């Protein structure tokens, strides 16, 4: 069994139900997840698709592996090849990133707040592990702010968008 590549544990003052909604409903995700709108029927085997805010442009996708509301959500995940092209990645790099990684959320009540554990594993290589690590921090801290204050943080550029802008 391969070990997880990235683990993030955050204690958030909210309920398990609100946390679940924030992870599974597009109108929530687009306020804290780089503007991405998540869509799925959330049954095992169903596709999970991320769209760019207010558009039908697919940015990332995967398949639901486990869905046990409001406790555990697992899906495969990979940026769409077209999205990687928009980031300016070469076809060789895109081919290297064509496998799906796995994103697992566990939600547990803990002393009146909610403990959220994210494990992101089965990543293709160290570089993508680093990229995802940098991507998760603003997403999860913005999620925490949204749930605790009702207001998301101002939108931030993703790491890839930033490196694109600096090129």
């Amino acid at each position, binding site marked *: 069994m391969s*070990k997880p590549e990235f683990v993030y544990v955050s204690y958030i003052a909210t309920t398990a139900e609100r946390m679940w909604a924030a992870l599974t409903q597009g109108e929530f995700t687009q306020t804290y997840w780089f503007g991405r709108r998540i869509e799925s029927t959330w049954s095992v085997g169903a596709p999970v698709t991320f769209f760019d805010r207010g558009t039908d442009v697919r940015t990332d996708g995967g398949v639901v592996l486990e869905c046990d509301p409001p406790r555990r959500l697992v899906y495969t995940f990979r940026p769409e090849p077209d999205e990687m092209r928009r980031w300016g990645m070469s076809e060789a790099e895109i081919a290297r990133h064509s496998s799906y990684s796995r994103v697992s959320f566990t939600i547990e009540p803990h002393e009146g707040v909610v403990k959220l*554990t994210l494990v992101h594993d089965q990543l293709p290589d160290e570089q993508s592990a680093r990229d995802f690590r940098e991507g998760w921090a*603003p997403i999860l*801290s913005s999620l925490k*702010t949204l749930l605790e204050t009702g207001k998301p943080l101002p939108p*931030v550029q993703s790491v890839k968008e*930033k490196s694109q802008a600096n090129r």
Partner: protein
Amino acid sequence: MDRDQDRVFKALANPSRRHLLDRLRADNGQALGAVCAGLEMTRQAATKHLAVLEGANLVVTIRRGREKLHYLNPAPIVDIHDRWIGQYERHRVRALSDLKKALEEAHHE
């Protein structure tokens, strides 16, 4: 929030514990034996330090079969970052930190 952050700063205010975090950053998800290997402290001392880091949520453990794997958890440091740096400044701070790193690397070459 401040009580949580007290724990984080106390945990970080110790070179051995910072060294343990460095080791996990370099190779995340290690069993106790691997975390302790080659350290200039006893296994008991390392276990105590890891417990302090876990209490501050800077280290989390996940069971994999018989092993308990230790992971660096960035969440408390992200919270500290957000408290004083915030989202707007993130990119400018990042640019300066990249610049510092590049200059220092060039200096050491």
